[in-house]
């Protein structure tokens, strides 16, 4: 159990850092931003999920991830507006907009899958 979560931490840290570093080196900024929505956590998680819980469990996670991705699109768009139009600091805009992700993701999941 501890080993599994240590492995998750390592795999997630490496995957997220790798995509973030790649994004740092790309121009224009809007293109580099694509890597802000890279499947870094998903790749690290799904590989471990496959070996521990099996493919059907991973398939359900993939289906939910579609809803999570649309929540991420809403979140990113709101962050963009808060930064451009209201000139909030990046930290304020990105943390304040978290509520959008939670409402969209959990709301979407409740409507589509009756969970949670």
């Amino acid at each position: 159990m501890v080993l599994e979560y240590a492995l998750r931490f390592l795999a997630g840290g490496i995957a997220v850092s790798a995509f973030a570093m790649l994004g740092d080196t790309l121009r224009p900024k809007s293109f580099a931003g694509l890597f802000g929505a890279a499947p870094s956590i998903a790749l690290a998680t799904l590989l471990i999920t496959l070996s521990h819980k099996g493919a059907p469990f991973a398939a359900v996670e993939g289906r939910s991830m579609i809803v999570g991705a649309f929540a991420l699109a809403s979140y990113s768009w709101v962050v963009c507006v808060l930064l451009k139009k209201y000139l909030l600091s990046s930290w304020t805009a990105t943390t304040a907009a978290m509520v959008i992700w939670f409402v969209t993701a959990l709301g979407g999941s409740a409507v589509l899958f009756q969970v949670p």
Partner: protein
Amino acid sequence: MIVQFNPSAFGQTRWNEYFVRFVLGGTMTVVAGLLAARFGPVVGGLFLAFPAIFPASATLIEKHVRERKEKAGLRGARRGKEAAALDAAGAALGSFGLAAFGLVIWLLIVRSPAWALALAAVSWLAVAMLAWQVRRRV
């Protein structure tokens, strides 16, 4: 507009900034696993698209651009925010790629896990780049 690769950007990021991203990414992966174990794959899957390192990344972008512009004698505060906003706009487009990734995993992973992961990664990149191209032309 041509996409450019600028390896000198590595030098702008300090080791502690890389460390913060590593810890946040690792922590979020652990949290996603714990949530899936506690509440099941439906809730766990949502958190595979959680913007865990977004605040740290956006703050770094704003800071780096602001510092660069101020070094050049320009007013950097607004330019820093604009750069972070552009990055966020890119992430919004990239999210469609992430949805494609999830779709491929959902439909194919039971049949062929290795192919599903490979095809999902390719789908993410293809859809994200297509969305970016379409946005540029509109």
